């Protein structure tokens, strides 16, 4: 009987199975990509007004709390109302037409529609105030915002990332007066600080009920 599998056939078969492998791998990659955030880490997000933290924080040295008013008291840091923006920009650069959305918002009494940069799932309950109160500086999650001409995300914001800090917060703590500094001096005395802030046990900080309800 003749060979069922000539060497050519064997080769073809090998190539075929290789292709199959590649397809599977590709599918997995696509799936992974599917589950990604709308805006990637490090990618500037398009906004109705090209707001520059670099300018406001870095150059002008405006305190975070001037705009993000409720960061110390509320769960959400709060986005500045049109009013707050205009408190300066009714005078400064008020003729620049990049501010049109601002003025039209004030006239129409409709909000400026910003695009989210940091978006957590609805079943995660993050509270800015407690993090700030416990010495977690802005820079720890938001990075060098003072160097961002447009705002982007520096953290993956996935559960693993949260846990990394909740499991060992010490290196991320800062003195109470340096929380809003950009950048705050590097910390050496994390242990001391965690004592100072009365941080709860690792167990408490990694309880599911700490973030999920």
């Amino acid at each position: 009987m003749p060979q069922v599998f000539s060497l050519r056939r064997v080769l073809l078969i090998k190539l075929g199975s290789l292709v199959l492998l590649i397809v599977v791998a590709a599918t997995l990659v696509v799936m992974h990509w599917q589950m990604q955030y709308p805006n990637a880490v490090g990618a500037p997000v398009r906004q109705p007004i090209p707001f520059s933290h670099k300018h406001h924080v870095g150059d002008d040295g405006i305190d975070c709390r001037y705009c993000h008013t409720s960061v110390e008291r509320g769960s959400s840091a709060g986005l500045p109302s049109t009013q707050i923006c205009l408190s300066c920009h009714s005078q400064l650069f008020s003729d620049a037409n990049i501010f049109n959305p601002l003025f039209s918002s004030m006239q129409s009494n409709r909000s400026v529609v910003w695009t989210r940069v940091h978006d957590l799932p609805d079943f995660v309950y993050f509270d800015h105030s407690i993090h700030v109160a416990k010495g977690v500086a802005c820079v720890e999650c938001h990075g060098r915002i003072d160097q961002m001409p447009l705002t982007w995300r520096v953290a993956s914001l996935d559960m693993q990332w949260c846990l990394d800090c909740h499991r060992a917060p010490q290196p991320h703590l800062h003195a109470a007066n340096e929380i809003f500094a950009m950048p705050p001096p590097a910390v050496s005395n994390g242990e001391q600080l965690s004592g100072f802030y009365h941080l709860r046990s690792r167990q408490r900080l990694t309880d599911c009920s700490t973030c999920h309800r």
Partner: protein
Amino acid sequence: MNISLDRRQFIKLIAATGAIAQTACSRPPPETILPYVHMPERMLPGAPEYYATAFVQHGYAIGVLIESNMGRPIKIEGNPHHPASRGATNTFAQASILQLWDPDRSRSVRRDGIVSTWSEWLSAISSISVEAQKNRGAGLRILTGNITSPTLLAQLQQLKIQFPNLHWHTYEPLHNDNASAGATLAFGKPLDVIYRIERANVIVTLDADFLSHGPAATIYAREFAARRRPDHAAGMNRVYALECSPGLLGTVADHRIPLSPAELERAAWQLAELIEGNTINDAPNWLQQIALDLNRHRGESLIIAGPRLPPSLHALAHSLNERLNNSQHTIQYIAPVVPPQNASLQELVSAMSDGGVDTLFILNNNAVYQAPAALEFSAALKHVRCSIHAGFYVDETARQCQWHVPLAHTYEQWSDARAYDGTATIVQPLIAPLYGGTSPHEILNRLLGNESRSAYDTVRAYWRSLRSENFDAFWQSVLQRGVIADSAFPSQTVVARPVEKSRALNDASLTAIFAADPAVDDGEYSNNGWLQELPRPLSAMTWDNAALMSVATARRYNVNNGDIVELQHNGRRLQTPVWIVPGHADRAITLPLGYGRWAAGNSGNGVGFNAYALRPVDSSWFIDGIQLRKLGTRYSFALTQTQTDSADRKPVLHATLTELRAQPEFVRIDTEKNSGAGSLYPEYSYDNYKWGMTIDLSACIGCNACTIACQAENNIPVVGKNEVARGRHMHWIRVDHYFEGSKEDESAQKNPTVLYQPVPCMHCERAPCEEVCPVGATMHDSEGLNVQVYNRCVGTRFCSNNCPYKVRRFNFLQYADRERESLKAQRNPEVTVRQRGVMEKCTYCLQRITRGRIEAEKRGTPLRDGEIVTACQAVCPTQAIAFGNLNDGDSAVARAQHSSRNYTLLEELNTKPRTTYLAKISNPNASISAQLSKPEPRDA
């Protein structure tokens, strides 16, 4: 929405189709943020704020604090300063928030059923006003319900002055006419009665369920329950409940005597004789004992006659209280809070049918549905030239009227209202009217001709006229406090004149008793899913009413649960299914009102049967000589609890006061055989906070307020009748009821002991549910909470199988409404809205604990006892629920768990629950046999 959701959908797609490659197309769209244009003062995004206002039911106010989150009112709490609340509320107040957001509410002015415009309406009413100015209100009539609002009353007063010919009619289906008539009989003038339940050692009620009905029910429940605790300084009270139709009070009374109305009347008169000291030979033993007991406690006893009873019996009750020297001690009299009505509905109907009514204003009243069918109101309405209905819904009346004007909800408008004792409260809006809508004040203003005067100005103007000096300070304080100080009516000293004996009720083979429905009241709440799905006491029935009758009556007519019968009374017929309630009086059937509506809304239409169809023209409460015919067809109910026999498993431990005294540790007897069972597992230490809950079964009156408060707080979805019938209701805390006594025991069937037991999650330290979850979606946190992580749950339901208390609830389908915007806006943003396919359960209100903990951490001092209050605990009228930190030795809950009455449910399973119970203690009269024998009526 959020990433994970899209991920879920994505993977779902894979699972469903398996076509992986094709589905890879687009990522979730980016979310947006909309900051304020003008940031409100002192507003903290995401933090709840509380505003004091009032929940108004049948005109009476219950002071409430409404939790508002980002401007959205989402939860009702009681106002501790308000005399009718003292921090608690009833089921209706809790559900009223859903009514506010009800997507079925009226959204537009309608003329002849067609959508019209506000401007058209305004021109219409101004022309009416002009007309009225001319003929001084001739042919102009107004129909309302009870009104206690001082401002509105003032406006009506004004109207009468401007338009002398105007007539004002009031109609309340659940009227209190007999009581005021009785007061008039006894005192010569109508008076309201205020009971000082907490002062009474012996209470005898005549068909009076003061725990569930009346504007003071919530506060009476609290006072009542205070004296049900054996450790109360003044000792336990003793309650004899003579009742025609089973109510909450009867089920928690020490002695419950079911009597048909006629029997009850006879017993009342006999009691009077006995109290006088006369001897009656045919008086049953229990009646004589009651008389003795009453005489033994002169000045500290109380006789209460229910609103259904004829005036003569009310008068009798007054004179007996007088005789027993109770008035001013346990009972007080005040001027009527609802001013005596001007004219009745009957007069209106006759006037209408005579064509004597040109213009009729129906303010927030649904007479077309609620008026007795016999009165044929809607037929008469056709003779009215111009009929105007103002209400929340395009209801039955709205459809019959020429004009319909949407009213803003109580929480959307300025007004005021008085509580049962006259205390006034300013009703302030929490949110701008969702669907537009005006207020009765504005309508009357327009009628009075002062066109554009807002409700706000009207209310302010009225109070300014009373408190002119530094009014704004006063205004601020009353808005903050929710109560207008010393606005309560003063108690009057009056002497009841004795009444001569008369028979108002005659014995009948079968008497029908009309009753307010525990869930939908008089029908106002028919469209409220939370209430419709709330199990009715004693039957656990949802989404239905039925003709309630005793076992004996059912046997007599050879009917069973679910048999459809036809009731007939002079010519009017009504078909209704039967439900047997053990302990119902024989020769009587109870017909709950408020069902069988045809224009209530999506939820309420066609639910149950309409008992108004049988109600006599004078809206009286009893009709005798009713005929019952079995039709042979069947009807199926949706129950949340199908088994009422505890099968000798003693879930509810109980004893009498004397037994307790004899053996304080009696709860151990049942549990010692298994208590202290050893364990191989290590003890986890909970050294920071250690949350626990204790439920006092002596205090629980089975009112279900906890269930609905929990539903409101935790975004618990409504599933509908079919799902409930399949055993899929979602309540996180359920109130079990058991009828003590076996099925065979005849007397137990006739009048069983009823035991209530609220069952939330037990938060077991050795939780069986956690051990079996394959993905670890439920686990213990370091404060001992049994946590359920919805976003981790894959829905194996193993945890529920392994939960001996069956307190876990599963989203078998997508129950949470994802479409209707208003329902989304109603939800508590602090609680995850559960997706289809995940398990959920009581969390001890984790969101409240977390908020409290964060605040405490920020201020740097530990949480104090009582700082965290769960939703069920807050609402409980009897304060039966204690919650707190077990590590704090003198926290309320820790003290409760050291009580000798403290026991854990199914202790033998060694699950170490954090939720425990205090055994139920009753205080029966030893000289009355446990099973009461009731008198056979002479002429039966």
